């Protein structure tokens, strides 16, 4: 076998590249499909053979344009025009959950990592044990709790059950275990209160894990379908997955509109991903709980 430290292109390398590129094709194919299908009439999407370029030949009514699908997607079922409301709701919920998760997970993780108190392990194990509770197991009692606390069918109701994540606590604790205690001691000697130490020393110096946790939380909330399905009855409260799902139910045969809907609903996440890709990809680094 060739040694990779020698500057020749080996057969192994060529094969490697081919394999990698093939997999890229597999990964990109559906995305490309979604993009072009957004402009197509349903008839073209399911035509045999499939033609990749959207073409007027398949248009079934004279009023269609290439953008009809997008207009339909935004207008929604029965022209209720709640697409942007749904996007706004999704953004608010995801961002808020992301912020609260980061803050409280950091707070709790800090307490667990850097302080000794009786029952510390018990608290940690209790919180970890909640990770094993699948959402479907508790969705109905959760519904009742939300109702009695009065947050059912409200925006807070969508946010609160997901405001903190046990996984986040775990991440923060692992990371903070390796946080140099000397800084903390020095700050205490300087007279800073504990909470201030948390805000001014710990948080700013943990940006990699905070950013990653924040982004993962955002993504998880963005994707949440089941809880909004139970909680958000009012139309103006719907989130994007809910919107897409009910759009799909109504427009089952209008695949073009469906793909257009999927496309524009994915744009925020695409923007986030391509601008902050290092935090998405670096997520694993933090997971491994290596220092810094």
């Amino acid at each position, binding site marked *: 076998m060739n040694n990779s430290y020698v500057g020749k292109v080996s057969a192994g390398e060529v094969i490697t590249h081919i394999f990698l590129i093939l997999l890229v094709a597999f990964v990109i194919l559906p995305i490309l499909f979604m993009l072009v299908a957004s402009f197509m009439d349903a008839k073209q999407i399911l035509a045999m053979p499939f033609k990749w370029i959207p073409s007027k030949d398949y248009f*079934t009514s004279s009023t269609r344009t290439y953008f009809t699908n997008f207009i339909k997607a935004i207008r929604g079922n029965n022209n209720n025009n709640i697409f942007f409301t749904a996007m706004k709701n999704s953004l608010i919920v995801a961002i808020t959950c992301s912020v609260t998760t980061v803050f409280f997970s950091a707070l709790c993780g800090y307490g667990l990592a850097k302080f000794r108190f*009786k029952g510390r392990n018990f608290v940690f194990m209790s919180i970890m044990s909640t990770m094993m509770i699948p959402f479907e197991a508790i969705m109905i009692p959760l519904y009742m709790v939300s109702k009695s606390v009065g947050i059912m069918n409200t925006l807070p109701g969508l946010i609160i059950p997901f405001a903190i994540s046990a996984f986040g606590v775990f991440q923060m604790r692992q990371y903070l275990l390796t946080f140099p205690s000397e800084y903390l001691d020095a700050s205490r000697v300087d007279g800073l209160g504990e909470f201030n130490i948390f805000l001014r020393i710990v948080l700013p110096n943990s940006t990699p894990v905070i950013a990653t946790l924040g982004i993962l939380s955002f993504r998880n909330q963005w994707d949440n379908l089941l809880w909004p399905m139970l909680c958000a009855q009012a139309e103006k409260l719907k989130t994007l997955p809910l919107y897409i799902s009910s759009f799909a139910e*109504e427009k089952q045969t209008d695949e073009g509109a469906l793909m257009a809907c999927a496309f524009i609903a994915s744009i925020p996440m695409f923007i986030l991903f391509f601008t902050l890709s290092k935090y998405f990809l670096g997520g694993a680094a933090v997971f491994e709980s290596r220092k810094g």
Partner: protein
Amino acid sequence: MKKVLVAMLLVLAVLAPIFAQGAEEKKATFDKDAPVTIVFWTHEDTSRNVLEDQYLDEFRALHPNVTIEVARFAAEPLRQGIQTSYAAGNGPTVWNLPIENAHAYIEAGLVAPVDYEVVGFKNADDMRKHYADGMIDAVYVDGDFYGLPLELTNWCIFVNKEVFRDAGLDPEKDYPKTWEEMVEVSKKIVKRDGDIITRRGFDFRYSYSLIYFVPMVEQLGGALTEKDGCVNAEAWIKALTFMKNWGPSGENLGNSTLTAPRKLFNKANGDVAMANTGLYQEARIAAENPNFYNSGEWMVVPFPVFEGGKDIAAKYYGHYYHVNAEATEAQQYWGWELIKYFLLTPGHAEEYLTKVGLIQPLESLMNGDVYKSMPYSDVFKADFARATITYYGKNAAAIQTQIDTAINNVMLQGVDPADAYKTLQANVLELLND
């Protein structure tokens, strides 16, 4: 020490929600001019929503003290929303669901009996006289009616004449009158690329077996009853064999994975020649594809019957408007007032018919001129006469799923019809004895 604290906190946290429940509101003594809010939930239907929005505005102008919160949902979210909101104790005031879903609420006492005085009848018997024979029995329990019918619908066969002619058939003469003919006609119309079907003659509404399949079984002498499940194995197996023959392992004329014909029919793209759907479809064709509607290139024919079988048409089903029995007295009163305004104000039934294609089974409407003037209403009326209401008894929805599954199994999974029947009957009996 800390452990005890933690434990106490947990106990408190567990108990807190119980204390958090507010005290129940006492029912107010009833003042008809006092402001009141009622909640109205219904399913999405473009033409009906437009009509009812107009009625709602008129109602609000007549009764300014009544605030009406309206929410419209797709079919399944509506069913689920009503279920979960009732579970949480705040179901909507006025709502509708297909009767097989709504019946459970009547049985559980969650729906109020009709307030005859408000609605304008003397009593239950008087109400019965106003409706066509037997059509509101579905909401009649122990001497009272529990809802007002918004629509009773049956399905006939819509035919696209152009596709027929393209296949060399004459739609007026060659439309199928029996299921056997249906197979022959579809064979002539079907186009394929290898195994993959690109044009169909007819295809079934696969997730509604209670409506289209049970009557086929009844034509062969079988039945579905709440007491004994799927009665007459031979009839059921024969019907299942017919479906197996319809699918990919037989004549390959269609199956449940292809797009539902009624959704393709309006487009008149040549994808499908026939669809099994109701009178309301006419309003949708007119809205979606007025050229097609006005061209006269479509017609409606009766539901086919097996050769030598009983003359039974597809089942009809219904939606009724109900009032929440757990709402306050004032809310219930205004709920019935709203329903009365929608359905029974003179002229409204005709508007529902012409603008939305919905038939209230009122005697006056079904014998009136407006009904007669709807295209092919005579076909629908004749089919009503030879049909019965769908099964709405215990676990109707789950039973329908099981029948759908049995059909799927024989058509697509290669299961033998006799075996499929055995499994089906076992599951249905279990559901009925639950």
